[in-house]
């Protein structure tokens, strides 16, 4: 369960003020997979960072007794001059309970990511598909109550995408996911509930279909980009 209480957040980027959340009070019930939709730049990634405890509200609280993963996406999470393998080592030594657990987690990442010799190449030389493979591999290595997934489901070739989906399905038998995606099919497949973000609002829908419909209406009415 994740409780938002009077949560407000303003983000400053390039000297511009962007309202992410305005006085939001909302409960996300336990055991539910949630998809987040909203226009580009509306603050979906920031919301994931807030839930993951990486970013802080300006006022109000977000309370949870569940463990959350780091926000898994293309940007952040990897140190560019380290190789994929070294980045995996870094995360594994942070989250593993002991040496055995660490070796096991590392093996899962290596096996799943299928990066071949690129596993030992600095991450800054990776394509976004390769970054997603590594990020996704890491997401499988540990058990969190909530996985926070930022767009990494919809990249790579078909074969890898299918494999990721199967792996995520298996993962969701024990965990839940909060997912940002522009791909409605992915959201429908994994999420039962949905959140629509718009202009500082965070609208929660019990059914992902309702959330997607609401988002589509906003798109039709106001267009795709929020400034």
């Amino acid at each position, binding site marked *: 369960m994740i409780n938002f209480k009077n949560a407000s957040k303003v983000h400053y980027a390039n000297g511009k003020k962007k309202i992410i959340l305005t006085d939001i009070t909302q409960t996300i019930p336990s055991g539910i997979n949630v998809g987040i939709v909203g226009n580009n730049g509306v603050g979906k990634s920031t919301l994931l960072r807030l839930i993951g405890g*990486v970013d802080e509200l300006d006022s109000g609280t977000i309370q949870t007794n569940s463990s959350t993963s780091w926000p898994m996406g293309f940007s952040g999470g990897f*140190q*560019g001059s*380290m190789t994929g393998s070294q980045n995996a*080592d870094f995360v594994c*030594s*942070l989250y593993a309970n002991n040496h055995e657990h660490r070796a*096991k*987690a590392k093996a899962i990442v290596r096996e799943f990511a299928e990066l071949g010799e690129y596993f030992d190449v600095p991450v800054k030389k990776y394509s976004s598909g390769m970054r997603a493979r590594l990020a996704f591999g890491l997401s499988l290595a540990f058990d969190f109550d909530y996985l926070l997934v930022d767009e990494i489901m919809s990249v790579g070739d078909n074969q890898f995408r299918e494999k990721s989906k199967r792996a995520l399905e*298996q993962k969701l038998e024990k965990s839940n996911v909060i997912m940002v995606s522009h791909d409605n099919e992915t959201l429908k497949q994994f999420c039962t509930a949905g959140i629509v973000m718009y202009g500082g609002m965070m609208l929660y829908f019990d059914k992902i279909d309702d959330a997607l419909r609401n988002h589509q209406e906003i798109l039709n009415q106001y267009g795709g980009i929020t400034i």
Partner: protein
Amino acid sequence: MLHPLKIKSSLEIFFSAVGALLTRELYTRFGTTLGYAWALADTFVQVGVFVAVKELLMAPLVLAYDYTVFLAVSFLAYNLFRSVVLRSMPAYEANRPLFMYKKVKPFDAVVARFLLEWMIMLSSFSVLFAIGISLGKIVSPKDIVMTLFAVAWFSLFTFSVGFLISILGELSDSVKKVVDFLFTPLMFVSAVFYPASVLPAEAKKYVLYNPIANFLEFLRSAYFATLDTSNVDFYYMAWWTFVPLFVGLVLYAKYEKRIIAA
């Protein structure tokens, strides 16, 4: 599928984060094998140059202490200060993507860099010590306990200053530029390759406003039987240790989230 994640105490988290960051620094600090060699050779070369200058220009000058050892002690300490400060400044920038893991705090990155520079200093010391022994040069410290105390205090001082400057540099880019620029002349006014006692009274007064000069004098007084602490102001050194640390912690508490999210 795997073990459930253990809940770790905040101290455990701190140690695991610093450990992970230290490994990360080891991966990228030196680059090639030559990088390792250079990290160790740095002090060696400086000592060599100044010994050569002294021998060539002031050969008849007889000093009350072994000048080579004097230089080795001074440069090891000065280089620790320089590298801790200069490597702390970009510590946040270089580790920003890793702050995505909430267990990793910017403070941990500064601590990891400090520890790495300290380990490099220790390695350089070992190499120089070994060379010194094989040349029959080593004078052991006059007071081992006092020497260790001086090293510990000086290390804390380098950390405090490095930590404060890392935050100031994060808040303003011009701080970084000014600090980079200041390091060029700093060595000459820090009593690195001469003891403060050889300076004329007027110059000495100004050089001793430099806390590094005070620390080096203290360190060498503990090491060499023929040097003393008459030019050392311990209160002044304490100020320079605790004020930057305190101001740094206050600023850090205020700006931590900004450093993470920048």
